[in-house]
């Protein structure tokens, strides 16, 4: 196995890790914090890099666990997903282009309304283009569980599509 370099192999994962953390926490500042935390933890484990099957999967697992931890810690003061809070989470993720595009905005909200597991799987599959096997490894699930959760996520999006078709935006 080739030598793993932090600068060339691990640091470039930052965007991917950030997107996953953002998908789970729905908060940019928090997501950035999580990525930083992840990279430092991974750096401190540099003696074990060679024993890992995939450093990327390992990093994504650490990021997800940190993001879930933080989300759960926030759960205490958390509110349920009501129409108001859905608006709130959207507002926290500033993407200028998206705000201009009503349709994209709608999809964004739709995806972020999904339960964490489905949301994470959607992120890893439909945005990062990962295989079911990789996702299963990252999330500690079986491939079947990954597929079931992805199926639910896509069906929910499809259902919304049909609703939009029937009633308009």
């Amino acid at each position, binding site marked *: 196995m080739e030598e793993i370099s932090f600068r060339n192999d691990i640091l470039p994962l930052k965007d991917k890790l950030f997107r996953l953390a953002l998908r789970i926490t729905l908060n940019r500042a928090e997501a950035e914090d999580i990525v930083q935390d992840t990279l430092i933890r991974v750096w401190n484990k540099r003696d074990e890099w060679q024993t890992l099957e995939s450093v990327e999967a390992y990093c994504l697992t650490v990021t997800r666990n940190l993001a879930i931890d933080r989300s759960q810690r926030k759960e205490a003061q958390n509110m349920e997903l009501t129409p108001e809070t859905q608006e709130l989470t959207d507002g926290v993720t500033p993407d200028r282009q998206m705000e201009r595009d009503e349709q994209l905005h709608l*999809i964004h909200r739709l995806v972020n309304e999904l339960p964490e597991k489905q949301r994470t799987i959607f992120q890893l599959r439909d945005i990062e283009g990962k295989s079911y096997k990789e996702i299963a490894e990252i999330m500690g699930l079986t491939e079947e569980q990954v597929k079931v959760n992805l199926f639910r996520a896509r069906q929910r999006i499809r259902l919304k599509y049909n609703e939009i078709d029937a009633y308009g935006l």
Partner: protein
Amino acid sequence: MRMDYKYIEQLIERYWDCETSAEEEQILRMFFSQTEIPAHLLRYKSLFAYQKSEQEIGLGSDFDKRILEEIERPTVKARRLTLQTRFMPLFKAAAVIALIFSVGGVMKHSLSDGNGAGVIYVHDQFERRSTDPQVAYEGDSVKSPLEKVTEQPPVVGRNHKQ
């Protein structure tokens, strides 16, 4: 052209049922990133365009700088290790000095063995004599070393010539 769209429609159907491969899903994203999309498929554009646009999100280069600075810190830890290695020359010097002393001691010992043979000889003789029962039979203790000395000169003289 129509055939192409049939393929895309099929892909979308299979996409909902999670039967598409990662490559096929990539084809869908590529297809919907085009500017010209037939009207009946336009409703799906936002989903796949969203997937593609989300791939662009990332962190700035100032983040790299911050992380690398943070990473530098453990090298302070590493420096603590080099501090130990930095003492190595000192340890080596101490070892060399110890070696010089011990070798020097041996040298001095062997040199004094050669030069001061008389002294050591007398000392040895004295010691041996002190435990030798023969001493009891000898006469005056003051006389005997004198007798010895008179016996010795030839030996000492020979040593000095050498």
